[in-house]
């Protein structure tokens, strides 16, 4: 009687490669197939028109919020981000380069933008933009209030307006007497909304899916990984064909 158990056949190295290669490739195949199907129907799914809002993804693509500056007056926050002005989270009509002060008075909001005075309603509607030819002093550094009168600080000193902002006269008082507008940190809740509005325009979903499909989402390493996966697929196909022929021959 022969007690010896039959030794299991040692698997062929190509078979081992096929098995583990197949498991490794499975997840990648699923990703490539799903993204491929989505890309085939870009228009139907509106991928080019849908913008990515994920902060993590936007930062991954190097899209950062431009430098911002915020002033507060009563319950209102006025923020300049890039060329856009926001009253709380509402964008204000127009584009602006500089913001140098913000106050609330007589039921209106006043902002010094681009060396002009922007008059707003509390809902963000632009009432008017007052410029130098309206009598506004040049080189505005800040705006504030003294006894409910609007004060402008310029390189040439302080200027006080009448109630209508039509006439400005030089004021010889200490700047410390005025209640000047000051920059503040924008509350986190508003930061998130503005960030979303600022960054959401820049990254279409189609771009992300295309990059997922090609491996480009991981940059240069992703491209090489994509090449490695393509080679893996070729090896799987070749090893599969080889094993099929070998099994057929044995039968």
């Amino acid at each position, binding site marked *: 009687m022969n007690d010896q158990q039959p030794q299991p056949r040692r698997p062929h190295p190509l078979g081992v490669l096929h098995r583990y290669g197949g498991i490794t490739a499975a997840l990648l195949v699923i990703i490539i197939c799903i993204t491929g199907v989505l890309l085939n129907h870009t228009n139907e799914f509106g991928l080019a028109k849908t913008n990515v809002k994920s902060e993590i993804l936007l930062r991954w693509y190097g899209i950062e919020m431009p430098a911002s500056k915020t002033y507060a007056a009563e319950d209102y926050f006025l923020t300049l981000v890039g060329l856009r002005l926001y009253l709380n989270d509402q964008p204000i009509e127009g584009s602006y380069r500089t913001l140098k002060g913000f106050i609330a008075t007589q039921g209106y909001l006043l902002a010094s933008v681009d060396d002009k005075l922007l*008059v707003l309603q509390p809902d963000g509607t632009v*009432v*008017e933009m007052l410029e130098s*030819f*309206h009598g506004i002093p040049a080189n505005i550094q800040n705006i504030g209030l003294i006894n409910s009168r609007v004060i402008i600080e310029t390189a040439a000193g302080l200027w006080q307006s009448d*109630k*209508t*902002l*039509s006439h400005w006269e030089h004021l010889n008082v200490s700047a410390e007497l005025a209640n000047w507008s000051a920059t503040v940190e924008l509350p986190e809740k508003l930061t998130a909304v503005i960030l979303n509005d600022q960054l959401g325009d820049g990254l279409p979903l189609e771009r992300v899916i295309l990059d997922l499909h090609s491996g480009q989402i991981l940059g240069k390493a992703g491209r090489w990984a994509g090449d490695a996966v393509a080679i893996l697929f070729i090896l799987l196909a070749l090893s599969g064909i080889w094993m099929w022929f070998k099994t057929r021959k044995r039968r």
Partner: protein
Amino acid sequence: MKYFVSKQLSSGLFLLLLALSVYADSIYQQPEEFIAEIFADNIPEKQVLWVTTEVRDEARTVLGHELTGLRIRYWQAGSRTAWILDEIGKDKPITTGIVINDATIEIIKVLVFRESRGWEVKHPFFTDQFIGARTASDNRLDRNIDGITGATLSVQALQRQAKLALLLSRYTNSTNSNEAESL
């Protein structure tokens, strides 16, 4: 060699100046100087025209877009009103001073031009066409304004400004126009 370097530097400087001249604002006259000139330094009090729904609706038909702001400041002495208006030609606003006298354009002058082309509209041979123009039906001008090749958008912007000034001046004697009493 020295001549060659000098020539290169001169060319570079010329190109730099050319580029700067293209992108800098061209200020032909400061708006405040324009106002002082037309009123012979006897500048009247600024007036305020509130943009009512009626004004806004008419302005939209004239401009082809919404009028920015809820009120417009202007100067008035007798039947003469002066307006400083901004209107975008292609990308940037053209600032124009317009004087209306008895519902007729008396003066129109490009004060600040910020576009990279179309500056020819500043010349009197073009702006003189507007002098004496009045509003015809549907807020159109009562005359044809000849265009300038290569400055079509600036020409159209000035036409819109002229029509808007005529439109706004119609409302200056109505109840919605007054000297500002408060902010």
